[in-house]
């Protein structure tokens, strides 16, 4: 079974600074997909960024980028020029090719990191 671990329950950073959230995972699969979801106080789950394991290039979406280290099974999220609207819970999530190939795309989530941006 896959597991996703987020070892930082809470983090805070000054507005405009850069912050990195950590995520490690365990799987025996060679191909899989990794995601970062954001959950603001409204509770809505919002996809921030995704990474496909067979792609060596790290994904980037505007101020959000990942550092994907496949051998180390690490998938960290970097937020640059942090903004007050970035305050939220951030969840790392995984779906493996076994789930995809069997046609269900189930996600396994980490326990989350609560990020607070300080004005």
């Amino acid at each position, binding site marked *: 079974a896959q597991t996703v671990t987020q070892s930082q329950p809470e983090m805070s950073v000054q507005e405009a600074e850069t912050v990195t959230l950590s995520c490690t995972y365990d799987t025996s699969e060679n191909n899989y997909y990794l*995601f970062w979801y954001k959950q603001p106080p409204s509770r809505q*789950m*919002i996809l921030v960024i995704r990474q496909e394991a067979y792609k060596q290039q790290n994904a980037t979406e505007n101020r959000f980028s990942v550092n994907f280290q496949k051998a180390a099974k690490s998938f960290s999220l970097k937020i640059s020029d942090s903004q007050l609207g970035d305050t939220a819970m951030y969840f790392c999530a995984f779906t493996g090719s076994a789930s995809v190939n069997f046609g269900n795309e*189930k996600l396994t*989530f980490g326990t989350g990191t609560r990020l607070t941006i300080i004005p």
Partner: protein
Amino acid sequence: NAGVTQTPKFRILKIGQSMTLQCTQDMNHNYMYWYRQDPGMGLKLIYYSVGAGITDKGEVPNGYNVSRSTTEDFPLRLELAAPSQTSVYFCASSSGTGGSAITYEQYFGPGTRLTVT
């Protein structure tokens, strides 16, 4: 498109009562999911469906039932509510169609906060 909608937003149940959480999506997605989120925790999969008439158990299915009679709707039934079912419930959907445009992105509803006392 409304995306994924859930009703109700909040509900308080007494122990032993039953209720149905409604979920509807208008994106013509094949796959739908129910998750629960306990305080300070990530989301755990309760049940999922890969199409009308097809459902399967996730990680934490005990105490719940689902049905999928249409592509759009995926209700979650709680029978004999227990305090351990106090949680926030999220419904999600994904296209599940494969192909070059596949992203495996799941689209989430706004959640239902359920308290069982």
